[in-house]
């Protein structure tokens, strides 16, 4: 298939490629760089929180006077760091990694397709992502600094903020466009390009999770696109979509005609942002399911309930958004509605988690590095999910809203949750992409250090929050309670810095293993899914012959079979 086409130059092969594998790697590298940058922003914030008012070591001397005062962080800079850390991690880190990288690389391979349905659109999605990311990053160099109104950009604060906020909005418009185009590609690819014999209920759970995620991205992002346009109009054309009448800022009336509603921003924002959090977790759940099935040498327990739960979860995720807005005075009827839907939506997540746990029962469990991360995901996501329940009910939320409890809750889900799933995926599919295995001792070191320090950062936050420490505080110690629990703050900060150092074995492992002479086997994990049916790395067009599928995705330890795994692309003699 690939002999006839002319050799493409460097640019067409590696920069402007339409091959989903190249695009997947591009997304992966870019996303990991952005994740690292977001980590650095957070490390600076943690310094200010642990040692308020003290000069930041090393970097403090290098930053300009709009950011630091004699090396010590200024409150405006702290706010920028907070807003951009959240934005970068969510929109430029996790989603591009989980969907853009893992999705792009693995989905066509796992369904037996030669590429995505629209390869050129795929390239355009990546390019829009890069442009959006660069716009976001460039805002740090503006005189007024980057956006500083939280990743949630609530009006009217965001409308009256410095130019960095305009860059944030423009960056979001590009990032949203990238996700929309990508979502269309994923849905058409999964529905239309499955191999012969690969019916929907023979799909690996990872593919289901990517399909539901794509629908969430497709349908939930446009209202935020609208909100961003409205906010740009408010900022640049002096309209008042979100500006109420009679607003006064710093003693002076704000120049806006008024008549708008700050609550409208919140509705439009959270209409996206709630499904967005499911976008953050579902691909991770998909990866964990693959790794657990493979390393327990058993089919997943409850595959069908898990799929139905996924679909129900996707649908429900559109009905819960106002649980982020309980404190806005919405009245008891609406509050009751959203509390009910929020409680209901916890059920499918629990079903999926429970099925994954039960899958381990009676299994021959192996513990390679990907499995360590996948197993750790289970209790970590469990803690994250359970701590969300009091937030989902309006009465306890009155106490917890906007405290460190919330930060602890969502970081448990995203950090030792999703990011561990991402690591599991990297260690698991590294041999597929590079043809080599990552070093195991370094991997185990990376895992154990990360596991300890992740908990070291976020567990104290739960207690800080319960004590009543608010989030987004420049210096919590000005309040009595903040000062009283300052030890917890310091513990979080030290854990954060040590967590960053713990990534060094991973970074070394990632780059050094690529250059190993010893190649991995074709199917080193003895896995059953289609991505292992082709060579490593796969050729242009993925499969020499289009594969045919004969069975389900997790036919491990089939009674009477000659080996403990029966790949779905090989016809088994019964």
């Amino acid at each position, binding site marked *: 298939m690939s002999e006839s086409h002319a050799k493409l130059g460097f640019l067409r092969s590696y920069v402007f490629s339409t091959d989903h594998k190249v695009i997947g790697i591009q997304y992966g590298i870019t996303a990991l760089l952005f994740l690292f940058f977001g980590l650095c922003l957070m490390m600076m914030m943690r310094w200010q929180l642990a040692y308020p008012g003290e000069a930041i070591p090393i970097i403090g001397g290098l930053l300009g006077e709009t950011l630091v005062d004699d090396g010590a962080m200024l409150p405006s800079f702290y706010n920028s760091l907070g807003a951009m850390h959240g934005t970068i991690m969510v929109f430029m880190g996790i989603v591009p990694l989980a969907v853009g990288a893992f999705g792009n690389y693995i989905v066509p391979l796992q369904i037996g397709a030669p590429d995505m349905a629209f390869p050129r659109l795929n390239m355009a999605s990546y390019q829009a992502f890069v442009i959006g990311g660069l716009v976001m990053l460039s805002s740090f160099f503006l005189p007024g600094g980057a956006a500083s109104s939280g990743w949630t950009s609530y009006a009217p604060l965001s409308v009256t903020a410095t130019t960095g906020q305009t860059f944030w909005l423009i960056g979001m418009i590009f990032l949203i466009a990238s996700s929309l185009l990508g979502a269309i590609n994923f849905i058409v690819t999964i529905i239309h390009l499955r191999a012969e014999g690969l019916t929907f209920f023979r799909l690996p759970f990872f593919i289901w999770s990517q399909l539901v995620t794509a629908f969430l991205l497709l*349908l939930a992002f446009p209202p935020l696109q609208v909100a961003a346009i409205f906010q740009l109009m408010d900022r640049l054309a002096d309209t008042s979509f979100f500006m*109420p*009448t*009679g607003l006064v800022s710093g003693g002076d009336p704000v120049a806006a005609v008024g008549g*708008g*509603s*700050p*609550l*409208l921003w919140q*509705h439009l924002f959270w*209409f996206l942002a709630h499904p967005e959090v499911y976008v953050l977790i579902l691909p991770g759940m998909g990866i964990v399911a693959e790794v657990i099935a493979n390393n327990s040498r058993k089919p997943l327990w409850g595959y069908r309930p898990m799929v139905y739960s996924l679909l129900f979860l996707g649908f429900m995720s*559109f*009905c819960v958004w*106002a649980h982020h807005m309980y404190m*806005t*005075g*919405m*009245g008891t*009827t*609406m509050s009751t*509605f959203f509390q009910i839907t929020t409680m209901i939506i916890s059920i499918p997540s629990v079903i999926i988690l429970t099925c994954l746990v039960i899958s381990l029962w009676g299994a021959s469990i192996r513990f390679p590095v990907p499995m360590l991360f996948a197993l750790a995901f289970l209790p970590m996501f469990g803690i994250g999910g359970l701590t969300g329940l009091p937030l989902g009910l309006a009465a306890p939320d009155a106490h917890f809203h906007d405290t460190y409890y919330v930060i602890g809750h969502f970081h448990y889900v995203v950090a030792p949750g999703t990011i561990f799933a991402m690591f599991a995926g990297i260690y698991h599919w590294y041999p597929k992409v590079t043809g080599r295995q990552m070093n195991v001792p370094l991997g185990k070191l990376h895992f154990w250090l990360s596991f300890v320090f992740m908990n070291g950062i976020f567990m104290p936050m739960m207690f800080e929050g319960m004590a009543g420490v608010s989030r987004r505080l420049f210096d919590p110690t000005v309040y009595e309670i903040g000062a009283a629990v300052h030890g917890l703050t310091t513990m979080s900060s030290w854990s954060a810095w040590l967590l960053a150092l713990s990534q060094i074995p991973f970074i070394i492992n990632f780059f050094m293993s690529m250059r190993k002479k010893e190649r991995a086997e074709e199917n080193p994990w003895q896995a059953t899914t289609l991505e292992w049916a082709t060579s490593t790395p796969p050729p242009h067009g993925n499969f020499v012959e289009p594969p045919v599928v004969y069975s389900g995705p997790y036919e491990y330890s089939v009674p009477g079979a000659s080996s403990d795994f029966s790949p779905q692309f090989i016809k088994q003699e019964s």
Partner: protein
Amino acid sequence: MSEAVAISESEAARVKSHLRVYVMVFVALAVLTVVTVAISYLHLPTALAITVAMVVATVKATLVAGYFMHLLSEEKVILWLLVLCAAFLVFLFALPLGTETGNGPLWPQ
């Protein structure tokens, strides 16, 4: 490389049979436009005016979607998916209204 796929005779005949329908839909759309403008001159009470206008608009939209966009001749799968989405959409967007009604202006003036 795909061969040049010529347009089949049966395809051409099928499309030709629909031409009359397209013209009739166009006439219906034009008439309904005039109707909706005429009704607006009656100055109905607000709630009724909105309802009537939206019903007429929905009928027009259904004609465009059903005939011009061939939805009525596509696989039922796509049609039902869209109908479900539309219903869900209307419900979802009506929801925030529940957080506001009865409380007067959205923001204290």
